[in-house]
C-alpha cells in the first residue's frame, strides 16, 4: 500500500542522502540539484556508518525537518559473505539509532528486489518477502530496523525496492546491461550464459532518481517496487547493445552455471500512484548510458602532445 501525504507536490526543505557517492546516491543528488532541491550529500568519508560514533555525527549534521534518503550499503560486489552481511546490519543499526532520536520530515529507504524469493516469477508489493541471499536478507532486516525506529515518532517511511539498475556510473559490473555495454566497447564482445534466455526487468537509474524525487515531493509512504513491468532476456539486451556499437560485436555463449529463471513485475502500484510517469524504454536508456560512457571516456582521455 503506497499513499501520498499530499497529492499536490510539496518541495522538501532539505534532502540528506546517505551513500551519496555511490551509483544511486550520486545520480539522486544530481537529479535533486537539477530541480533546485536543497541537498546534503553524505558519503562514508563524511560519516562512516560502520562506526558507533556515526550516530552522534548524524545528530550533528542532520536537522529536524530534513528528509533523509538511505542508500548506503556494501553491495554484493564488495562481498556476499557473512562479514559483509554483518557490516551492513551494523550500518543499519547505527542509522536506526539516529532515526529514533531526531524527528525527520520523511525517510526513504532504498532497498532491493532481492528481498523477494528468487523463484517468484511475478512480483508486486504484496509478494511475500523470502530473501535467498545475504544481500536480500540484509535489506529486509534493515527495512524492519528502520520501520521500527521510526514508529515512536511516526515519521513517514517510503521503502523503495528497485529491480536491476543500469546507468553510466554503475561500477558494479554485474551481469547485464552495464557489463554488456563495457565489454562491447572495450572488447567488441558480449558474453552470455547459455543463450541468455533468462528475462529480467532492467531499470534506468534516472527513472529511480525521478521516482524517489516524486516520493519526496508527495511525502509518499509505504512500499514501492521500481521496475518497468517489461522483462526482457539477456540475449535481447546483448543484441540491443551490439546494435548500438559503432563496430561489430561478437555475442559469445558460455555454459550456464545455474537453471534458467525469469523475473517479472506487476507495477500497478507505481502506475496507480504515478499514472503519468514515463518509464524509460530499455533501448532509449541503453543509448543514453552509452552516450554518457563515451563522454566520460573522452573527458579522461590523455591529450596527445
Amino acid at each position, binding site marked *: 500500500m503506497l499513499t501520498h501525504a499530499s*497529492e499536490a507536490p510539496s518541495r522538501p526543505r532539505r534532502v540528506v542522502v546517505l551513500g551519496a557517492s555511490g551509483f544511486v546516491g550520486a545520480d539522486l543528488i544530481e537529479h535533486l540539484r537539477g530541480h533546485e532541491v536543497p541537498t546534503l550529500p553524505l558519503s562514508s568519508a563524511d560519516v562512516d556508518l560502520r562506526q558507533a560514533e556515526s550516530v552522534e555525527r548524524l545528530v550533528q549534521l542532520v536537522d529536524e525537518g530534513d528528509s533523509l534518503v538511505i542508500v548506503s550499503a556494501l553491495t554484493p560486489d564488495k562481498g556476499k559473505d557473512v562479514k559483509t552481511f554483518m557490516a551492513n546490519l551494523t550500518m543499519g543499526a547505527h542509522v536506526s539509532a539516529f532515526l529514533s532520536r531526531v524527528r525527520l520530515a520523511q525517510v526513504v529507504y532504498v532497498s532491493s528486489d532481492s528481498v523477494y524469493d528468487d523463484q517468484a516469477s511475478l512480483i*508486486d508489493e504484496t509478494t511475500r518477502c523470502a530473501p535467498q541471499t545475504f544481500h536480500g536478507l540484509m535489506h529486509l532486516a534493515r527495512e524492519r530496523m528502520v520501520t521500527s525506529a521510526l514508529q515512536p515518532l511516526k515519521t513517514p517511511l517510503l521503502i523503495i525496492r528497485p529491480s536491476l539498475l543500469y546507468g553510466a556510473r554503475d561500477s558494479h559490473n554485474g551481469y547485464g546491461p552495464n557489463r554488456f555495454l563495457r565489454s562491447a566497447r572495450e572488447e567488441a564482445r558480449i558474453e552470455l550464459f547459455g543463450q541468455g534466455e533468462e528475462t529480467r526487468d532492467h531499470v534506468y537509474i534516472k527513472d529511480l532518481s525521478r521516482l524517489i524525487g516524486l516520493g519526496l515531493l508527495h511525502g509518499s509512504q509505504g512500499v514501492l517496487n521500481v521496475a*518497468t513491468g517489461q522483462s526482457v532476456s539477456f540475449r535481447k539486451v546483448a543484441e540491443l547493445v551490439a546494435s548500438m556499437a559503432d563496430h561489430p560485436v561478437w555475442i559469445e555463449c558460455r555454459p550456464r552455471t545455474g537453471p534458467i529463471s525469469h523475473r517479472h513485475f506487476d507495477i500497478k502500484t507505481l*502506475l496507480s500512484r504515478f*499514472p503519468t510517469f514515463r*518509464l524509460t524504454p530499455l533501448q532509449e536508456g541503453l543509448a543514453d548510458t552509452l552516450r554518457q560512457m563515451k563522454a566520460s571516456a573522452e573527458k579522461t582521455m590523455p591529450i596527445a602532445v
Partner: protein
Amino acid sequence: MIGFAGLSHLGIVSSIVAASKGHDVVAFDPDVTRCEALRRGQLPVVEPGLQELLASARPRIRFTSDPQALAACAVVICAEDVPTSVDNTSEFGPINRLLDTVEQQAAPGMSVVVLSQVPPGFTRQLARRWADRRLEVFYQAETLIFGQAVERALSPERMIVGCARPQQALPEAYANLLASFSCPILPMRYESAELAKIAINMFLVSSVSTTNILAELCEAIGADWSEIIPALRLDARIGPRAYVTPGLGLSGGNLERDLSTFSRLAQAAGTDARMVEAWLVNSAHRQGWVLTTLAREVLSCQTDPMIAVWGLAYKPHTHSTKNSPALALLETLSGSGIRVQAYDPAIRLTRPDWPRFTQVSTPLEACGEADALAILTSWPEFASVDLTRVARIMRGRLVIDPLGMLDPAGCQETGLRQRRLGVPTLTEDPVLC
C-alpha cells in the same frame, strides 16, 4: 400469507417474485420512505423485468414499515442483504436487528427463514437463541445474480434449504411456497446449506481465475482466448455455461465476501486456504490491466490527456458499483488530476473531490476530444455505438475494451486501436510510445 423482512435488493426481488407466483405477500422494511416509494411503484434497484413484474404482482403484495403486519404470516423470510466492509467482511448488525424485530412479532409455530448471506454457524446459533420460542428456523441459500436477479428468482435451478432436522417434512406453508417454483428442493443441515452457497461461489471464482490466468498468457504468447472458449464449452466436464469469459478480476462484493468467510473459517479450522489467497492476488493483478494499458499507451506520453470511460457499474443491468473496476480506475485517474468524461446508463456519480471528472449523458459525448476510451461495463448499448462517429470525435485511437464489446473488424476499419483481454497486441514493445 408470506412475510418478507428487509427490502434491499434481495428482499425486493424475492418478495415481488413470491407475489408473482400467486402468494399473498407482506413486505416489511423499517425504512418508511423506502416503503412509500415501493408503494408508488418506484424501485430503488435496477433489474431487467422487475418493474413489469411488480406491476403484475401489485394486487398481491403490501409494502409496509409496520412490523406488526408480519404477525399474521405463516412464513417470514428475512431477506436483508448483509453489507460488507471495505475488506469484504460481513457486517451483521442490520440483519441481527431485523431478526430481533421479527422475533418480537413471531407467533408460535411460525417458520422464520434466513435468506440473507450469512456464514456457516449463523442459523444454528439463531435457532439456539430462539429455542424457547417454538419457532421453526430455516436457512435458504440465495443465488441471485445482479442484473439477472428476476430471471434467476423466477426459475431457480434448485432450492437449498438448511434445517434443524433435514429428514423431517417442511412446514406446509413453507413447503407450498417452495413448491410454486417447480424445482428440486434440497433439505440439508444448516451448516451444509450455508456452506453450499459459498461452495457455488468458490467454484465460480475458480473458473473466473483460471480463465483470467489463461487469457493473460494468451496476450503474451500470441494465442487468442476467444478461439479457445468454444473448445472449452463443448467439453462436457466444463459445460456450455461455464464462466470462461475473461474479466478484470473479481468485483461486486459477493464472491469476495464468500472468499473472506471461507478464509476465516479455514484459518480457524486449520484447513488449507492458500488457493483462495492466490485467487485474490490474481484478481488484484487483473484489475490493474486497464490502468497498465492506459499508462503505457497514453498517460505516460500525452500532455494533459483526456480519458473517456463507458460504464461505471460493476456489471451491466445493475446499479451496484461495489468493487467496480471503473470506480477503481476513476479513483486513480481523477485522484491524479487526469481529465475523465464518463457515461453510464444507470449510475450518476457525484464526486466534488474530482474536479476534472465529468459525467455526460451519451457514450458519444464521453468520447469528445478523448485520447483513449475505456469500456468498463458490458452494457449492451455500447456494442451498437457508431464506431465511425467515435473515431471522428476522439483525438486518440486507443480503445481499451477488456470484455470485447466492440466489433474488432469495425475498430480496424475505423482506425481504432482495440485492446481486449486474452488477445495479443501486435506491437512488440508497448512501452515505446
